[in-house]
């Protein structure tokens, strides 16, 4: 391509005789003005919603729901539907958690589980991404393991715990094995769904600009599949966390340290219902917290960048 200054080269074969130069410049100015007008008329602008409204619309309803649940719980306690060692009040659960807090162990317990969950999730990510790509792009592989991979999603990963204990004993390997078996199918399936939903036009456009082979995967295929991939990641995290709790609950031994699952098991052994409910609450909070702090913003960002969020 020739270097392109904004001025039209005089020898331009298509231009009329030299006398029309001035008129031509007017034409160009008129065209630029027309174009600017069209661009301005046709451009969509999006205003951000004010913070107060976001709070009112997004934060208030769940807060009200939580208060309602607590109120129901408290009234069930007050009516003594069950004896208080079976149905403690919200305050008793709070006290049990506070007691763990003052013992100074609770953060360690939460960290134990969260770090395991995070590590397991990251390993699952590394395993599931190439696996998902293979299933999505290679016909034979898809025919061979595609159905199994999506079938595995409906197998509760707690079913793997006995097998993992037989294989690995009461070790960290057992826990990670269960987490991986829970998370890998979700992430891989999410990626497959993401790749299946790519517009064929984008793949062709990638090919035309020379993004083929691995460069095509990196610059076109993966980014194009990102929305499906991210929802796979989200679900993969939920499955990691669930599987981790199942594994921790069953595989307890001193060498394994105390995670939230073991804390729950301790509560059961001592018939300590406030502790059991407190542990459940913590498990729930961590699960929700990571989803809200990590995956929800990630997903929103991906969708907003592509203009897929405006309608919602």
């Amino acid at each position, binding site marked *: *391509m*020739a270097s*392109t*200054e*904004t001025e*039209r*080269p005089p*020898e*331009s*074969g*298509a*231009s*009329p005789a030299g006398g029309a130069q001035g008129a*031509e410049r007017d*034409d*160009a100015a008129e*065209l*630029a003005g*027309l*174009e600017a007008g*069209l*661009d301005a*008329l*046709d*451009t*969509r602008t999006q205003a951000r919603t004010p913070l107060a409204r976001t709070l009112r619309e997004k934060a208030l309803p769940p807060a009200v729901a939580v208060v309602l649940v607590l109120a129901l719980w408290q009234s069930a306690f007050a009516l003594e539907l069950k004896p208080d060692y079976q149905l403690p009040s919200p305050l008793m659960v709070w006290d049990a958690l506070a007691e763990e807090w003052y013992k100074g162990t609770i953060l360690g317990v939460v960290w134990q589980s969260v770090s395991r969950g995070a590590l397991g999730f990251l390993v699952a990510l590394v395993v599931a991404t190439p696996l998902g790509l293979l299933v999505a792009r290679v016909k034979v592989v898809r025919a061979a393991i595609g159905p199994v991979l999506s079938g595995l999603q409906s197998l509760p990963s707690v079913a793997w715990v006995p097998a993992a204990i037989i294989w690995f004993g009461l070790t960290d390997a057992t826990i990670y094995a269960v987490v991986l078996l829970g998370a890998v199918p979700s992430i891989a399936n999410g990626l497959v769904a993401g790749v299946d939903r790519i517009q064929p*036009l*984008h793949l*062709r*456009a990638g*090919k*035309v*600009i*020379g*993004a083929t082979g691995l*460069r095509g995967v990196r*610059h*076109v295929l993966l*980014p*194009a599949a*990102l929305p499906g991939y991210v929802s796979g990641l989200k679900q993969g995290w939920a499955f990691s966390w669930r599987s981790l709790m199942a594994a921790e609950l069953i595989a307890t031994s001193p060498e394994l340290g105390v995670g939230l699952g073991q804390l729950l098991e301790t509560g059961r052994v001592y018939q300590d219902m406030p502790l059991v409910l407190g542990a459940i609450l913590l498990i729930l909070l961590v699960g929700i917290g990571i989803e809200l702090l990590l995956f929800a913003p990630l997903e929103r960002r*991906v969708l907003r*960048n*592509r*203009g897929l969020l*405006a309608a919602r």
Partner: protein
Amino acid sequence: MPTTLSAQDPAAAAQPRAAHQQDRQRQAGYAARLDGVSKSFGRPGAQQQVLDGISLDVAPGEFVTLLGASGCGKSTLLNLVADLESPTDGTIEVPGGRPALMFQEHALFPWLTAGRNIELALRMRGVAKAERRQEAERLLELVRLTGAYGKRVHELSGGMRQRVALARALAQDSQLLLMDEPFAALDAITRDVLHEELTRVWAETDVSVLFVTHNVREAVRLAERVVLLSSRPGRIAREWRVDIPQPRRIEDAEVSRLSVEITEELRGEIRRHGQH
């Protein structure tokens, strides 16, 4: 195979516009050469022939429109030249390297900004990182979208998207630009403006254009040469040299006069299909 009316002498057809053209292309004397190209789809036995014996040269720097009714295989022909599909028979030579292709839909990547879309094409071409940004800005300026670098694709209007797509196609620095009805989905005023833009950009660069359309006036408005394809199978039926000087307008009397003539021919081609 039936004989077809092939393109005339490419050297005579070439109007040298830009001072320098790629060496390989000048040596070859054409930006693309199709020789006896046929394409069939379907299994052996139940084949449908889409293109039959297409022979066509596009001269360096030439602007050719391929015109035809639906089913004449004009998009297939572009896919063949772009190497997205292979011909059943015949040869295609594109000496200037991988051609750029613009689609009817903008085909920009929605996960990248306008500027980054262009930079990706530059990167695939091997342009160094340090130069990409500047080059992308320059191309945006060329299509009069200065300042749109950071805009997301969904924030742009249809006409702006096609201009970014044009800039991305130019970023490939290919000697041949294939365009598959790129303005068909735009409103009339925007299309007029983009015709003017394309003519201007084509005059400022030394790129050859092979432009597919079913719109006769658009074909005449833009091209130096209009090639009419018949349908099922697509064969070259006739071609016209358009000597009306640029800048033309779609409503110019001369454009209309030639359009009427070509439309008559096109209607004749279509009518033949209803006769048996």
